[in-house]
């Protein structure tokens, strides 16, 4: 499984870790990873430190998550390598996400 979900009860934070290629093949799994927590949690972390490649479909999946969880929730994109961070910045994801 290239997606794993960890619930940090104390901070009410949901952490979604993605491994390998973040692309269209994860479309359903990625949505399933956060959809159960909509309305229950106010902070999400997407751990991308083990993501090797990210395509534009993955950017779309992140935007879809952004819409689904609601504007009041923070989504942190954590640990992206320089190549991926560059892709995120080209699309100005810093306007909607907390890029760490």
């Amino acid at each position, binding site marked *: 499984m290239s997606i794993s979900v960890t619930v940090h009860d104390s901070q009410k934070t949901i952490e979604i870790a993605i491994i390998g290629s973040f692309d269209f093949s994860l479309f359903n799994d990625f949505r399933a990873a956060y959809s159960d927590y909509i309305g229950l949690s106010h902070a999400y972390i997407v751990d991308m430190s083990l993501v090797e490649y990210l395509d*534009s479909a993955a950017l779309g999946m992140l*935007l*879809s998550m952004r819409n689904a969880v609601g504007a009041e929730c923070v989504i942190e994109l954590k640990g992206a390598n320089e190549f991926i961070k560059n892709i995120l910045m080209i*699309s100005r994801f810093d306007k909607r996400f907390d890029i760490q």
Partner: protein
Amino acid sequence: MKLLCVDSELVYREIVTLCAEKENVEVRTASTFQEAMSIFTGWLPDLVVLDVVIQGGSGLDLVRALKALSGSRFVPMIFLTSHSSDATMNKCFKSGADDFIPKPFNEVLFNVRLKTHMRHVELVQEMYRKNKALTYYQTMIEREHEMAHQVLDHIQNRSENNRNWVAITRMSAASFNGDLALVKTRSDGVRLAFVGDFTGHGLPASIGALPVTQAFFDAIDEHISLDELAIRINRMLFSILPDYMFCAAYLILMYPTGELHYWGGGMPNAFIRRNSGKLDQLQSTHMPLGVLPTAEFESDTREDKLNKGDTLVIVSDGVLELKNGQNEMLGAAHSEFLVSSCYGAKSLVQAQQVMEMELSDFRGSSVQLDDITLVALRNTNSH
């Protein structure tokens, strides 16, 4: 599941039938070679149990004949025989048998082997079904891609191309995304360009291209400003596309004086290859089109200028991410070098051809994974 039992002796036909029926297997029996052949052809059993010696022929020949008749169907053939020497067993397997059980009949052994072969048959049938479903979907997707290509190619035909001032190249990958490049001169001589890259692949990507094209050619007729066009396209895509789809793009307005207005969202840096050989870069500063609601959308444009002989080159990320035989990406530095060296040529069309060749040389024999779009605009006026 259906089993054919071929044996000259009634007692074996009965005991095999008894055991197999306990496993809910339907059984038919044959006592001769000919009978076996005709049942096999007419009834299409999933399993065959047979002896080496049969009336009217040899079991070895029968296996060969039945295997040939089964074609692509997997039908396990199990020898049940008292001729249990190693040499016979070897011959049985060589003639195509899948298993060998010695007589006298051992019920436990027979049942275990029968179940194993039944599982095998089920697995193969399941695989066959799934393969058929996959083939169906693959064919469907190929057709959708063909259709999307046709739609995009048709749109592309309305654009100007291969002039001394504009060159557009699209190199389609097998599984193509949604690159779109449009360039057109307005009645007042101002030139408008749209270079975009939709998320997603195939048909979904090309669906967004249709309204964008409409808005683009409306803007040509109406002479609307660049920021107004950006707002219109963004609003349209925001309302039409699902939230996981958007379009990274450059919108460019080039005046006859060479003055350049541009709006960029989600695109890699574009280049201006100065006539002097110097390379400047244009930056895309916004989120892609179709992401932000109109209230939040930023339509501010930037300015630059093409002097005579300067060339604006826009490449899609398919160029930067193009891979060679060693799985290395072309990358920014190499792209800059190629743009600098190729676009010095006097003829823009030639320069573009050289650039295409360089990209194809770099790629070598590796597979092109993404669509490639190259758009070059040059100021050929003497202002």
